């Protein structure tokens, strides 16, 4: 029966031509959990307003709390379908190809934090949705959802409309006149078009599609640099069920040392930059100095292993999850979109453009992709009865999600990177344990508490956070032993990569005693010694 299941799964995977919808993802997760026994457990953290489960898949050696852990979070942005696939397929890949790392690392995987929004890809009318199904008044005018998109050219896609109008600010880009850009009057350019998203101004307030289905976006609802009172942010940070459910789960996992996000932020292609002024304010908005160096080290590994380059700039807007995971949670925070369109092959005539859409269109043409742009086509628009109005533009989802047949290679390279992180993770070992008799039945015990990992036990930010435990060192005395010097229980704030802290005690008495050192996120080591 089990093998039969397995075959079916492979068959579906092989047959898979496109991103999987919520019910397909759910069934893939259930299959994983049923195939891997105690190594993979699946739990729904909550249901969104739209009725979708927020899944949490735990991969471990059967005892999740016993090892340091990484959280992998996908679907932080509703337009990023790739993140959902990568999270699920990474889980499959780890269980199938890297199961040994579960002996040292636990994974908490949250494949899709925006299921209400990603669902829009699978509906008849497709647009990149970010918000959940909560009913919101995006333009704060007292009415909800009164001005959404309309598919004016009947292609089931929401693109753009351009209106020929001498008062408009936009013009066609010379390199590729399909692309509209703002006219730069300082360079002598003059606007000739108005540009709006596809739809009509239903509420006649002069703005287009500013209050549609809306909702609150997972990646705008976190507490760092929260964008108050903007579309999709929510009334206050962490107002949404899915945000709360995830955070409540993460705050209770003391073994968590890292959060790996698949989303628009990218600190792996190039590391975050330290800014002394921003780092030294009470409200810290720059990565701290030591963490910058750590980020650089991990970024080099990432570029090496995934063989990626030319990444577009990181997008980490107010309220985003990645920034929260570092600035407010203090964990080792990593984020990558996982994929971006490579720069098109250049030749002597055509140089890469400064415009990313131009590059994307050239690249997709070289790839033979024909479904990435909707050519401008004239329509009649009720709001512009006497003007030339055309519908067209980039097809939603295409620039952020690769063709599905490219996904498995991305999974492969990211699985290697994750396995590498697991090897580098902080790990506390008691080393060089020795005893010296100093006379009259008193012994000096010395030990090095060593972090054998190449990642520090605490990021510099994590050292400030109450959500990473300090390293506890305890000495448990045997019968008739007495502590003359040294502490029975002590804390070490942090131990850098491949570094150690030496501790000593003076003990009176004979027989065996025990030492333990560690924290849930670094692993705990223990040693016993027999006093002579």
């Amino acid at each position, binding site marked *: 029966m089990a093998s039969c299941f397995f075959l079916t799964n492979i068959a579906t995977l092989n047959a898979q031509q496109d991103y999987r919808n919520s019910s397909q993802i759910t069934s893939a997760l259930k299959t994983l959990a049923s195939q891997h026994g105690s190594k993979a457990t699946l739990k729904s953290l909550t249901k969104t307003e739209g009725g979708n489960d927020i899944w949490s898949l735990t991969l471990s050696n059967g005892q999740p709390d016993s090892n340091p852990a990484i959280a992998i979070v996908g679907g932080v942005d509703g337009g990023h379908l790739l993140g959902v696939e990568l999270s699920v397929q990474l889980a499959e890949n780890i269980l199938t190809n890297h199961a040994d790392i579960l002996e040292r690392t636990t994974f908490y995987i949250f494949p899709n934090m925006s299921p209400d929004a990603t669902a829009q890809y699978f509906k008849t009318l497709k647009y990149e949705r970010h918000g959940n199904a909560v009913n919101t008044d995006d333009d704060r005018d007292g009415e909800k959802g009164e001005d959404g998109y309309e598919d004016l050219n009947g292609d089931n896609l929401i693109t753009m409309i351009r209106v020929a109008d001498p008062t408009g600010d936009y013009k066609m880009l010379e390199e590729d006149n399909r692309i509209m850009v703002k006219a730069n009057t300082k360079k002598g350019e003059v606007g000739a078009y108005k540009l709006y998203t596809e739809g009509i101004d239903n509420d006649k307030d002069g703005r287009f599609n500013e209050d549609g289905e809306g909702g609150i976006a997972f990646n705008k609802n976190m507490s760092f640099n929260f964008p108050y009172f903007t579309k999709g942010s929510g009334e206050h940070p962490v107002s949404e069920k899915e945000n709360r459910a995830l955070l409540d789960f993460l705050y209770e996992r003391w073994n968590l040392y890292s959060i790996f996000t698949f989303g628009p932020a990218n600190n792996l292609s190039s590391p975050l930059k330290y800014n002394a002024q921003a780092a030294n304010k009470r409200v810290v908005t720059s990565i701290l100095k030591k963490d910058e160096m750590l980020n650089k080290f991990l970024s080099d590994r990432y570029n090496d292993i995934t063989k990626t380059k030319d990444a577009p700039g990181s997008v980490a807007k107010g309220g985003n999850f990645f920034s929260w995971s570092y600035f407010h949670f203090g964990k080792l925070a990593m984020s990558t979109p996982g994929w971006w369109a490579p720069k098109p092959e250049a030749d002597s005539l055509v140089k890469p453009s400064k415009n990313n859409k131009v590059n994307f269109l050239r690249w997709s043409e070289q790839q033979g992709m024909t479904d990435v742009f909707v050519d401008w086509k004239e329509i009649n628009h009720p709001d512009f009865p006497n003007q030339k109005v055309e519908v067209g533009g980039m097809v939603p989802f295409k620039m952020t999600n690769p063709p599905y047949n490219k996904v498995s290679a991305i999974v492969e390279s990211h699985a290697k990177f994750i396995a590498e992180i697991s090897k580098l993770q902080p790990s506390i070992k008691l080393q060089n344990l020795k005893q010296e008799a100093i006379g009259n039945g008193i012994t000096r015990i010395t030990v090095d508490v060593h972090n054998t990992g190449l990642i520090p036990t605490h990021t510099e930010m994590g050292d400030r956070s*109450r959500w990473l435990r300090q390293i506890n060192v305890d000495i448990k005395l045997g019968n008739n032993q007495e502590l003359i010097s040294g502490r029975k229980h002590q804390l070490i704030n942090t131990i850098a990569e491949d570094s150690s802290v030496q501790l000593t005690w003076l003990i009176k008495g004979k027989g065996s005693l025990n030492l333990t050192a560690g924290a849930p996120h670094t692993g705990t080591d223990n040693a016993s010694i027999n006093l002579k």
Partner: protein
Amino acid sequence: MKSYIYIILAVLFIIPLSAVSQTSEDIFRAVGTPHNPKVQIAFNKYYTSEGLAALGKKIADAHPNLVKRQSIGKSTKGRDIWMLAITDYSVGDADRKPAFYVDGNIHSNEIQGGEICTYTAWYLTEGYKDIDYVKNMLRDRIFYIVPTINPDARNDFMKEANTAHSPRAGLIALDDDSDGLFDEDGYDDLDGDGSITQMRRKNDNGNFILDPKDPRKMIQIGPDDIVTAQRYEFLGSEGIDNDGDGRINEDTYGYYDPNRDWGWKWQPDYVQRGAYKYPFSAPETRAVADFVKAHPNIAGAQSFHNSGGMILRGPGAEEDLATYNRADVRIYDAIGNKGAELLPGYRYLTVYKDLYSVFGGELDWFYGGRGIYTFTNEIFTNYAYYKKNGGGQDVRYNAERDLLLGDGFTMWKSFNHPTYGEVEIGGFKKNFGRATPGFLLEEECHRNMVFTFYHAYHMPNISVDKITKKSLGGGLTEVTAIIKNDRLMPTHASQDLKYKIERPDFISLSGGKVIAGMIVNNDDFNVTTEQKVNPEKLRINNISGNSTVKVRWIVKGGNNYKVTVDSAKGGLVSKSL
């Protein structure tokens, strides 16, 4: 034996009977206080959470036409957080009236808010009959009163081993000492007096001696003092090393601070000590936030803390200075300065510069996040003992001896401590110093209540002042209406306008077909702003305090014109021509 039983029966019957019979003829009204209330409450003592809940229920049961009682959520330990919604339910739509929100006791040990809120609810309901001010207030406004938003830890303060300063946190256990155990080393009431006081020990190198004139006091030794008396050292608050880690009382309640848990410019614990996981991560603050979000009619709010005699406004954090602009500060100042007059000994202050710079406070979310003018009062100050300022620490000792007759201090007694050996335990009891003494409590309640009434009075009060019409010929009529707000507060605070927190006010005309509608900016010079779409429902960003708005419609046909103003914070009013 039998006669003994009779006495008990007599006592049981006579006391309630005398309470009932003590009605009109035996009582002379003290001015300003309901003298023959349906619900008798003593305001010279404090009530546990269950005590407050029972009083709230009595008030609600006795005044069904004025009070609706509702639980707005559950505490960490599952207690209801009770709210009394008080208004004249026979007039208007209760939840559309401008609302005033009051709560108390967010900090567990800061208990007076429970009694002030209960007194306010009692006064509104019992005063309704005789006092026109109260009657008018309940006709036009609704009060949402939550005596304790921290019922678990209120009880803990009263019933368990605590100092006057503990617990400040709620009862969610946290690991303060990073050892994987939660709240495992709190205080221990070693002398069994119900309070956590101080431990001291004789030590020839100590820095203190006993005051020869007052056995309660210790005197600190100065660098030039020549001391012949026995020296002492202080050993901190009463407790033992419960978890055997070599430290005493290092993982007590929490620690988190419910008043660092609010969703305006919230910051995590390493920036703002006391923050918990994320804004509204404590169930009690979440319950309040959910209630406030669901009641956009709340225009003014008040929370009660102790102590120090302060009327506080935001900003809490220096970094948030720009949020409070001049127009709103003017309104805060008018109300706050009145408060300083009504509350002798209290000072009107700004949190970030006069107290401390702090993120995530309740008053900041109410104002920054909801546009609600909000104060926090720090109840009680040493001024109250002798009705004067100054005197330093001696005031406390003198008042404890002369006014409270020694009821506020546990005299030093020796105790054999498991770690420290022979120590002495003693000090001020937990109900001294911050909590108002019984004989002053009713005054404290009344003065704070009238401050909230002044604040509530100045919430927007909207009316359709005047409607006029003029024929334009051709079947067209010009209808002009003047909308008036005759109180201090606008319908939208400037913070609200800046972010459009609350929707605009709607001014609508019915009774004819509206073909054009406009706001009249200047009638004399005919300056108007036309609303091209849906002119029958004009959208007005704000109706300022103590001002009017003039609007005009051009109407085809009809005659029974009716003007309706629909404002979230200003209420729903209409008038027909």
